């Protein structure tokens, strides 16, 4: 096996960011993602990078904006309450067409909430989080290995499309250790002629800005951005399937919920229930196509979430309400057990709701 090491999810994503060429990290301590900052604090000074513990999450995201406008790969990480504070900056990143990676290791909310794993920031992430019309690329890893690969992908696509990427993990994925392969192959980079590198008196000045006081102009800027979003929706949606070929019931779950679902599917199959799973890997763009196709084959869907039912709305939209979608969920830091999901599957198999 090639260079397998065992790492915590938080540390693995930090190392992956470094491998992807990120040399600037700004953060603020918050459980359960503080290991990211600790890892960066240790590593960055040794490789000529910058680790800076900002005075607040708000300052951190604005430092990210500074580095991003200078054209360098940059990231910040936080957990739910901290991401709310960063949301102003997320809107500015999108409005300024700046690439950056933002990591959200989610915990239970709202408010100060708790520190145990959650997926209740789904709406915040997939709808942008801050004000205005915009999207971020949202990646939902379900293994420590994916914490690595999707971190790299997040940087690459952010640069490609000049927009912020979010790695939407949760407390479990951040805290758990699994073997990972850090050999990530060649990392894609992109030219950034728009970056603020100094004019050297040889070109017109570059301006990074989101202010357009003429409504006609701002409208065109938004139209153009959404044209690009459309392209992204057509080309960049990522998902995984499990035992969908003959499935009568389709579970839709991401991240930690998908892992528990897999155990439940195996148990249900042992009982003779034909159930499979579509696991969105990108939450924006949401993998609408495979879901719509599945809607013509399966009898019903189950959305397994660590929220009061957020992704379920995207599923219903994607399948155009052709079939019923049941919700199987735990919240507040609780994780659905295999039994919870198995019961939902049994109910669905009987034609009832979960």
């Amino acid at each position: 096996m090639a260079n397998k090491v065992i790492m915590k999810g938080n540390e693995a994503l930090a190392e992956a960011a470094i491998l992807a060429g990120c040399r600037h990290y700004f953060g603020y301590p918050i459980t359960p993602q503080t290991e990211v900052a600790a890892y960066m604090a240790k590593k960055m000074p040794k490789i000529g990078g910058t680790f800076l513990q900002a005075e607040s999450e708000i300052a951190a995201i604005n430092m990210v904006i500074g580095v991003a406008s200078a054209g360098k790969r940059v990231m910040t990480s936080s957990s739910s309450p901290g991401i709310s504070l960063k949301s102003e900056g997320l809107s500015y990143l999108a409005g300024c067409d700046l690439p950056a990676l933002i990591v959200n290791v989610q915990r239970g909310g709202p408010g100060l909430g708790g520190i145990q794993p959650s997926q209740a920031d789904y709406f915040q992430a997939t709808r942008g989080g801050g004000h205005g019309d915009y999207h971020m690329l949202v990646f939902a890893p379900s293994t420590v290995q994916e914490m690595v690969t999707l971190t790299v992908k997040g940087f690459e696509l952010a640069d490609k499309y000049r927009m912020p990427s979010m790695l939407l993990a949760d407390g479990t994925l951040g805290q758990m250790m699994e073997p990972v392969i850090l050999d990530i192959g060649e990392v894609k980079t992109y030219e950034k002629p728009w970056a603020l590198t100094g004019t050297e008196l040889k070109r017109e000045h570059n301006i990074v800005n989101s202010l357009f006081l003429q409504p006609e102009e701002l409208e065109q800027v938004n139209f153009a951005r959404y044209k690009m979003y459309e392209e992204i929706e057509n080309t960049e949606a990522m998902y995984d399937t499990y035992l969908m070929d003959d499935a009568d019931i389709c579970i839709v779950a991401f991240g930690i919920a998908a892992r528990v679902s897999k155990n439940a599917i195996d148990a249900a199959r042992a009982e003779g229930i034909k159930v499979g799973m579509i696991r969105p890997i990108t939450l924006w763009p949401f993998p609408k196509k495979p879901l719509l196709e599945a809607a013509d084959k399966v009898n019903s869907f189950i959305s397994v979430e660590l929220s009061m039912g957020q992704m379920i709305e995207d599923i219903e939209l994607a399948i155009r309400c052709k079939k019923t979608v049941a919700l199987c969920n735990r919240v507040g830091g609780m994780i659905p057990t295999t039994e919870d999901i198995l019961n939902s599957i049994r109910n669905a198999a009987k034609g009832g709701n979960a």
Partner: protein
Amino acid sequence: MTTKLLIAGFGGQGVLFIGKFLAYAGLIEDREVCWMPSYGPEVRGGTSNCGVTLSDEPIGSPVVDHPDILIALNLPSLDKFEGAVEKDGSIYIDSSLIERKIEREDVKAFYIPATKLARVTGLSANMIMLGYLLKTSNVMPYELAEKVIEKIVPPTKQHLIAGNLKGIEYGYNYCE
């Protein structure tokens, strides 16, 4: 084959280290491994636990709801998790800290006064418990212990290797 272990005790008893040891053993054996700690304020002086899953298949949930093997290093942990152990599973108990016997009849119990033995020998209780586990279960081969310890102990703490190995050896050779 999949084995799910839950190690639970007070913070400071080396709960996470036992888990880490088993996880690294899995890594060396090129098995699928998942290590999941409890985290947050409750680990500071309170109860601490970690789940380890070792498998030859990709691992689904990292959460160990129903362990095949429970290692209980204090009474609150036994009280909390005894009922969760899989039928025909095993419970390892530090009998110097837990006075009661287990109530379940459908699981095997292994009692070892690890903390007392540690006090007498100057070795560490968690390593003694680990050695005893290796002797009485098929979680991982005992012969792997040295390799695991070498991998897990950071370069600055190499002097700790011998002591840890002695602890494992002592637990392995312990008989009631």
